[in-house]
């Protein structure tokens, strides 16, 4: 029987994704309607108790057994998983992760589908990744995902400030500016 037809796999994997992500109290996890859009969750970042509008996406897949995973090398932390039927919309404009859970031990693994990155000029980029090499999903890994996402938005914001004549005169390197000043600039954009 194909795994996707076993009733509990997808639902249980999605519940596990919520359990893993909700270990942090600064994420707003929103399930997406439908199941075949290549995006199961939108995860919003909260800072100082306020929703930032910064999001990353998560697509979730399930495997019945951890025996379906293959270590990349004996002591490597990376593993290989054969993930089929992954349909991802190229136009998704934010970082996107793939989580895979094995049902017999409830372990999770992840890789980026659209990886947040920064080019040589300091501009935010999203790199499409289709290499099925995964890392173990744990609290540290989720911290890394959140940090990478947050940094990516910071870079985007900085680039946007640099190209906006209304904010250019106020522009200073990021480390000189505090969050309050940045919020003020963002408000000016809207006005």
């Amino acid at each position: 029987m194909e795994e996707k037809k076993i009733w509990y796999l997808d639902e249980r994997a999605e519940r596990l994704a919520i359990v893993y992500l909700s270990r942090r109290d600064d994420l707003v996890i929103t399930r997406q309607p439908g199941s075949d859009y290549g995006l199961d969750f939108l995860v919003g970042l909260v800072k100082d108790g306020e929703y930032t509008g910064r999001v990353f996406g998560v697509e979730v897949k399930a495997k019945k057994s951890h025996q379906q995973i293959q270590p990349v090398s004996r002591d490597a932390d990376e593993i290989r998983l054969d993930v089929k039927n992954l349909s991802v919309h190229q136009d998704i404009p934010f970082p996107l992760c793939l989580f895979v859970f094995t049902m017999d031990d409830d372990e999770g693994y992840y890789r980026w589908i659209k990886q947040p990155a920064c080019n040589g000029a300091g501009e935010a980029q999203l790199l499409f990744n289709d290499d099925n090499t995964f890392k173990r999903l744990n609290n540290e890994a989720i911290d890394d995902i959140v940090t990478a996402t947050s940094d990516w938005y910071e870079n985007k914001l900085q680039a946007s400030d640099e190209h906006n004549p209304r904010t250019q005169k106020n522009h200073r390197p990021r480390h000189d500016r505090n969050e309050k000043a940045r919020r003020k600039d963002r408000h000016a954009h809207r006005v």
Partner: protein
Amino acid sequence: MTNELGQRGENLFYVLITKPYGREKPIFRPQFLGDKWPVVDFIVELIDTGSIVPYFFVQVKTTHSGYTKRGNRLKASIDGEDMRRLALYPAPTYIVGIDEIKEEGYIISANGEWLKGMSSLPTAFPLNKTIQELLWKEVKDYWKKVRIRPRVSYFIDPHWR
């Protein structure tokens, strides 16, 4: 209890009750009834029981407050009104206490054995493989003993053959 804590507990319950423990598939199929549904959070069907589909109801109580020093009880409370309303369901009903830090759950019957509130929940029955199997058997036996008679409804289609 905050919404986030409650939702985390509900997801943990789903994961714990559907853990297959080496079986081909889980032995329970839970369905969340929604945040607006009063008193009970889940209806849970038993899988592979033959000619009938036994089920039970669950209310989930989630805490991050840990355990009492005396008796090692989970610091999650339930009030007397909820206990009385749970006992009104003509089906097996249970309370599941979830420790969201350890990500563990404990089940206790709520069929009217105790109608007062509880300020903490016992941890004698952790949701593990053994308890899953005992629960499955208990609920199956309950429905086996209930005499389900065929009945004739007023709402029938005379052309249906």
